[in-house]
């Protein structure tokens, strides 16, 4: 009896092996294809950017990125990131808390609206701000009377960046917090924790990796945003130019080496962010698989 089973199972095993061989061919083709696409559309452009930037040597490269306008653009980009990311962090946590811990009317509408910046073209987002705060805009006169400049100035750039990055943190946290539910928070309250202690010692550690992931994505987008910022910026060199806008201006002036040099600066920032993302993503995946096992 047992020998029969052994034979049948060996046969089944052989069949499975054959099937796996058939699959293996297709699998290898797919993997090679994926690497080819990756090389052609991602690595090659990356290489092109760097080789263009360094075509005339390191000296020219450093002159281009250390030039005052480029430094100003870098500073403005970092400023926009420094303001919009913390604000979005606050908003994201608050919105995710609302959606996952409370029941209220219009909840699904709120969740849909959070996604609005994803579905609206960034150019339109920029135009909205021009229409609202521009000289001929809705608040234009009121702002002019008080000598406040929003459009074609730094506040406009920060606002536009804020708008396009709103969904990142909230989107990341909502499913995570919904899955975790409210019981741990209730347990903390029952054990005497006040609202702040509950949030800091129970909620934050539970959502930490999702939070970091959201912030990383948000930072990447805030640095790279072109469309919305372009509309409200006015392209004043050394004043309202962010890095992506500066790259475009240099490129349009046929100053290719400088354009690619500044572009590679932006690229270096993006790669740092990517590494951060990879790291937080791995932690998040581990956390979720643990939760799923329960």
């Amino acid at each position, binding site marked *: 009896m047992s020998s029969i089973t052994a034979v049948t199972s060996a046969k089944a095993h052989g069949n499975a092996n054959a099937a796996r061989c058939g699959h293996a061919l297709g699998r290898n083709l797919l993997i090679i294809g994926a690497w080819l696409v990756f090389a052609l559309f991602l690595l090659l452009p990356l290489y092109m950017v760097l080789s263009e930037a360094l075509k005339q040597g390191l000296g020219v490269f450093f002159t281009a990125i250390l030039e005052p306008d480029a430094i100003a653009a870098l500073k403005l980009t970092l400023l926009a990131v420094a303001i919009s990311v913390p604000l979005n962090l606050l908003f994201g946590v608050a919105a995710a808390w609302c959606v996952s811990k409370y029941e209220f009317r219009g909840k699904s509408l709120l969740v849909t609206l959070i996604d609005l910046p994803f579905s609206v073209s960034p150019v339109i987002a920029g135009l909205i701000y021009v229409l609202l705060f521009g000289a001929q805009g809705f608040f234009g006169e009121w702002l002019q009377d008080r000598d406040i400049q929003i459009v074609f100035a730094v506040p406009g750039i920060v606002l536009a960046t804020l708008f396009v990055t709103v969904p990142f943190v909230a989107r990341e946290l909502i499913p995570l917090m919904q899955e975790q539910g409210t019981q741990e928070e*209730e*347990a903390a309250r*029952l054990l005497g924790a006040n609202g702040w202690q509950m949030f800091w010692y129970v909620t934050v550690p539970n959502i930490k990796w999702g939070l970091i992931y959201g912030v990383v994505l948000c930072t990447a987008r805030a640095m790279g945003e072109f469309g919305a910022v372009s509309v409200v910026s006015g392209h004043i060199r050394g004043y309202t130019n962010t890095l992506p806008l500066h790259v475009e201006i240099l490129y349009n002036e046929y100053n290719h080496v400088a354009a690619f040099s500044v572009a590679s600066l932006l690229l270096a920032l993006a790669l740092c962010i990517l590494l951060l993302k990879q790291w937080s993503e791995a932690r998040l995946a581990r956390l979720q698989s643990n939760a799923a096992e329960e």
Partner: protein
Amino acid sequence: MSIEIRNVSKRFGAFQVLNDINLDIRSGELVALLGPSGCGKTTLLRIIAGLESPDQGSIVFHGEDVSGHDVRDRNVGFVFQHYALFRHMTVFDNVAFGLRMKPKRERPSETQIAAKVHELLGMVQLDWLADRYPEQLSGGQRQRIALARALAVEPKILLLDEPFGALDAKVRKELRRWLARLHEEINLTSVFVTHDQEEAMEVADRIVVMNKGVIEQIGHPGEVYEQPASDFVYHFLGDSNRLQLGDEGHILFRPHEVSLAREPLAEHRRAEVRDIRPLGAITRVTLKVEGQGELIEAEVVKSHASLLGLQRGDPLYFRPAAGSLRSAS
């Protein structure tokens, strides 16, 4: 500490979860809230804890109305069905949490906290797990840690929401006996919610049977079983048979309250054997009676004379035991 529940009502949207509940729980008692799912028992427990607020009525602890008190000021221990352990903290930190959250002037030193935590972990016999994380523990271990965590702040009242509901049968049995002993030792007022009548019968001093947001009966385990106040209580506290009596209605009796014979006897009804199930000390026989679709279940000791050589399809004569009858319309 005694608990008084006065005229408590609660509604979620259009659904009346609790309807004018009144209940007195004496100091040191272990009370079970028993009922089917959706009967409002968990909501009542959460209202006692302060996790939900009632639409009407009040909660009184030891003569003091605590209805307006926040959860954290009520000083109740609460154990959740799914444990709700803090997943990112070790077992030690979970148990220490309540002590560490105390305001600075009441907070014990870390040395005192460590001593207290190890004492509690010793009490639940899991001291060796102090450095583990919740995800590394079995269900039964998690529930004991949850209990130790709840007891760390020395509550006067312990509330347990289906504490053994997520555990397998054997662990459940062990844990509930252990809980009953623990309750004796540390002299708390405890209320636990369950839908399992056996669990309520085995652990509780008194059982509160609930259905559709009202209390059907309050009594000692023997009382609710022997003298059920309603058909609902009778059905809920054990298996029951319904035997049709022509046009005069029907009677209810429990499977073990029956006399069986192989030969026709006075007052015995004839039935056909449909199934025979040996269940250890007792054997369950399923009977088909002429004139009713509902089958009758009879349980007798396995050595009962009528079972000898009994086969499916054989005739068998039965009579509900005289004292057990419960007529209903």
